[in-house]
């Protein structure tokens, strides 16, 4: 089974969940990232996701391994979609199963924050009057070492 995927097709949420169902798990959390119409008051028409696919799959797998090491008995599965996505389309699905529920929430949250730190996937916003790769703003944090630094989780 492929637990970590980059997909050009719509994501089957149930299929991602099914990967982490286990007899020893009492809790499964999922995070479903959907395309939101309004960001910072601007109206998005659609998004375009691009990935360095081979590396992205490896980084998703690394995140899963980190989770399974940090939370005892945890199992993760992640699928991220790329290409053009319209409003309410599902961009990412993270499923995490654990024996106890507190861990399922924490581990899942960890996964989405790590995705936003280390997985080579980029999002371009398209509006009525323009388009821009997200993260290409002037205020973007620099990476002086050439590698991502540990940082606080942000919104």
């Amino acid at each position, binding site marked *: 089974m492929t637990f970590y995927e980059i997909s050009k097709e719509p994501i089957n949420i149930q299929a991602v969940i099914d990967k982490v169902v286990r007899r020893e798990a009492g809790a499964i959390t999922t995070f479903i*990232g959907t395309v939101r119409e309004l960001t910072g008051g601007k109206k998005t028409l659609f998004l375009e*996701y*691009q*990935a*360095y696919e*081979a*590396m*992205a799959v*490896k980084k998703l797998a690394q995140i899963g391994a980190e989770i399974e090491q940090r939370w005892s008995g945890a199992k993760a599965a992640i699928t*991220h979609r790329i290409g053009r996505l319209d409003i309410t389309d599902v*961009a*990412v699905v993270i499923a995490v199963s654990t024996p106890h529920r507190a861990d399922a929430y924490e581990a899942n949250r960890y996964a*989405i924050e790590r*995705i*936003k*730190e*280390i*997985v*080579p*996937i*980029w*999002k*371009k916003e398209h509006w009525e009057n323009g388009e821009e*790769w*997200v*993260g*290409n703003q*002037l205020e*973007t*944090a*620099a*990476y*002086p*070492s*050439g*590698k*991502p630094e540990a940082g606080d989780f942000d919104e």
Partner: protein
Amino acid sequence: MNKVLFFAHLRDVVGEEFIMVDASGKTVAELKAELAAKYDLPRLETVMTAMNEEFAPNDEVIRDGDEIALIPPVSGG
């Protein structure tokens, strides 16, 4: 030879998904500086580098055949 991949706004600026260059013996920082000059790449201080699908520090030395990718700030999720 080395394949160098571009993504997001860097791909738009360069106009190619990748280029082939001979970068063996150079450090990551040296290659980035050359590419920045050649293509007038913006804000490379925010751009990470991957070598063979793993993040690589600026002082890493490139060998023949290594696949290099310039990784702008990621925005998945």
